[in-house]
C-alpha cells in the first residue's frame, strides 16, 4: 500500500516539479519498488490521457522532414586539395572516437559511483526520516500526555479553588461570628464594668450603711466629775456595742494617791453589779487615752463610771465614784 504522501511525491515527479536531486532520489526509489513502479506507470498513462481531452489540431506536416534534415546535417563536398591532407589525418577521428569511448566508460563508472552514493544517501535519508517520524510520534505522545497532565492539574486546581472558596466562605462566616462574639464580649465587658461600678457603688453604699450602722452601734458618753476635788477633770467614753470594746479619754485627772488606782466600770442594767473594764494607768496630769475591754460580757452599756480603788483594782466598786457618764 502506497501512502498518500508518497503518491503525491510521485505525482510531483511525473509533473516535473521536483529539483534534479529530488528527481533522481525518487527515480531510484521507484526502481527499487515494484508496487510503486506500477503506480507510476498507471499515473503516467492517466496523465497522458488528459491530452486526449484537448481538441486535436492539424500540426505542420513537414516537421519530421525538418527534424531528419537537421539530424543528418548538410552533406558538404570536400575540396580535392584537402582530400590528401585529410587522408593523412584519417587516424584523428578514430583517435577522437577512442578518447570519447574511454571518456564514456569513465563517465559511466563515475555515474555508477554517483548512483551508488545517491542510493546510500537515499537510504540514509529514509533512515533519518523514519527516526524523525518515530521521534515526532514520541513527541506527539509526550505532548498528548502533557496535555492530559495539564488538564488533570487544571481540574485539581479548579477543585482546590472551589475548596478555597468554600474555606474563604467559612472564614468569612467565622470572622462574622467572631466579630459578633467580640461585640458581645465588648457588651459584656461594658456590662461587667457597669456591674463593677454598681458593685463599687454598692460597696460604697454598704460602707456608708455600715458606717451608719456602726455609728448606730457606737455609744458616746461624757464623763462628768461627781466630787469637787476632781472638778477640773473630765472624760469621754466611746463604746462599740457590736464589738463590745471601747476607748476612754481622760483629761486633767491627777495621778491616783499611792496605793490607789482608778478603775473603769460599765453599768449594764441586765446585771446586778457594774462590770469592771480594767484599771486605768494615769502617770501624770494630762490627756490619757486607752482602750478597754469589760471583764464580763455586756448586753447593754447604759453608763460608765470611774472610781478610786485599791491598787490593782476591785471585783466590784468599793471606793469613791469620781466620774460618771451616760
Amino acid at each position, binding site marked *: 500500500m502506497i501512502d*498518500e504522501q508518497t*503518491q*503525491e511525491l510521485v*505525482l*510531483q515527479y*511525473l*509533473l*516535473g*516539479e521536483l529539483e534534479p536531486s529530488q528527481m533522481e532520489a525518487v527515480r531510484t526509489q521507484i526502481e527499487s519498488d515494484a508496487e510503486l*513502479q506500477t503506480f*507510476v*506507470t*498507471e*499515473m*503516467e*498513462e*492517466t*496523465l*497522458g*490521457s*488528459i*491530452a*486526449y*481531452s*484537448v*481538441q*486535436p*489540431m*492539424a*500540426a*505542420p506536416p513537414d*516537421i*519530421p522532414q*525538418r*527534424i*531528419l534534415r*537537421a*539530424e543528418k546535417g548538410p552533406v558538404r563536398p570536400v575540396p580535392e586539395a584537402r582530400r590528401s591532407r585529410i587522408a593523412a589525418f584519417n587516424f584523428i577521428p578514430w583517435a577522437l572516437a577512442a578518447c570519447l569511448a574511454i571518456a564514456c566508460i569513465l563517465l559511466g563508472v563515475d555515474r555508477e559511483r554517483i548512483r551508488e552514493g545517491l542510493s546510500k544517501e537515499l537510504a540514509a535519508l529514509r533512515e533519518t526520516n523514519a527516526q524523525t517520524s518515530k521521534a515526532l510520534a514520541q513527541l506527539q505522545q509526550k505532548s498528548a500526555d502533557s496535555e492530559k497532565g495539564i488538564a488533570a492539574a487544571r481540574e485539581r486546581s479548579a477543585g482546590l479553588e472551589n475548596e478555597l472558596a468554600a474555606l474563604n466562605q467559612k472564614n468569612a462566616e467565622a470572622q462574622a461570628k467572631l466579630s459578633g462574639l467580640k461585640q458581645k464580649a465588648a457588651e459584656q465587658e461594658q456590662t461587667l464594668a457597669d456591674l463593677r461600678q454598681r458593685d463599687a457603688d454598692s460597696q460604697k453604699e454598704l460602707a456608708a450603711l455600715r458606717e451608719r450602722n456602726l455609728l448606730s452601734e457606737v455609744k458616746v458618753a461624757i464623763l462628768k466629775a461627781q466630787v469637787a476635788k476632781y472638778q477640773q477633770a473630765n472624760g469621754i467614753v466611746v463604746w462599740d456595742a457590736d464589738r463590745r470594746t471601747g476607748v476612754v479619754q481622760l483629761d486633767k485627772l491627777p495621778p491616783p494617791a499611792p496605793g490607789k488606782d482608778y478603775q473603769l466600770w460599765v453599768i449594764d442594767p441586765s446585771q446586778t453589779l457594774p462590770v469592771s473594764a480594767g484599771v486605768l494607768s494615769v502617770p501624770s496630769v494630762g490627756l490619757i487615752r486607752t482602750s478597754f475591754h469589760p471583764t464580763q460580757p455586756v448586753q447593754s452599756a447604759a453608763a460608765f463610771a470611774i472610781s478610786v480603788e485599791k491598787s490593782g483594782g476591785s471585783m466590784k466598786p468599793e471606793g469613791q465614784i469620781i466620774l460618771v457618764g451616760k
Partner: protein
Amino acid sequence: MTRLADDPESKFEASLISRIADGDESAFATFYQRLSSSLYGMAYRMLNDAKEAEDVLQEGFTYIWRRAGSFDPSRSTPFAWAVMIVRNKAIDRLRVRQRSERLRERAEQSLVQQRDESSAEQPALRERTAIVRSALQQIPQEQREALELAFFGGLTHEEIADRLTAPLGTIKARIRRGLLKLRDFLQEET
C-alpha cells in the same frame, strides 16, 4: 483490469517506436502522423501560441527520434510517453517565458477557431477523446480545475495553491484524488 498498453493501437505505436530506434524514417513519419494532432493541440492549449506550439512539437519529436531506444513499453504507453515529452518541452518554455494568465485566456478564445475537425474524425482518436472528456467530467470540478492547471498550465502545486487561495496540502490532495478517480474511470471504460 486492462492496461492501455495492451490495446492494439498502443501495441502498433510501440512497434513504430521500436523501428524509429533503428532509424526507420517512415516509421517516424507514421508515428508523427498518428500523434501530432493531439500533441500539437495540447501544446497549443498550454502555450496559446501557434508558433511556440509548433517549436515545442518539433523539439518533442526530435527527442523521440533521438531517444526512441529508451522507450520501455512495460512502463508506459507510446502516447503517454510522447505526451510527457512534449508537455515537458512546453513547460520549459512556459517557465522561461512566464507568460501572464491574461494572455493565456485571450489565446484560449481563439483556440476554438483553429480546431482540426479532420483529425477528430479518426475513429480511434475520436473515441478516446470522448472517453477521456467523459471521465474528466465525472471527477469533482475543484479536482479537475487543479488537475488542468497542473497539467496544461504547467503550474506547480504551490502556484496553484496561490492562484486558488487554498492550502498547499489541499491542492496536493485534489490533484492526487482527481488522478486516481480519472484512472479508475478510464480503466472501467477500457
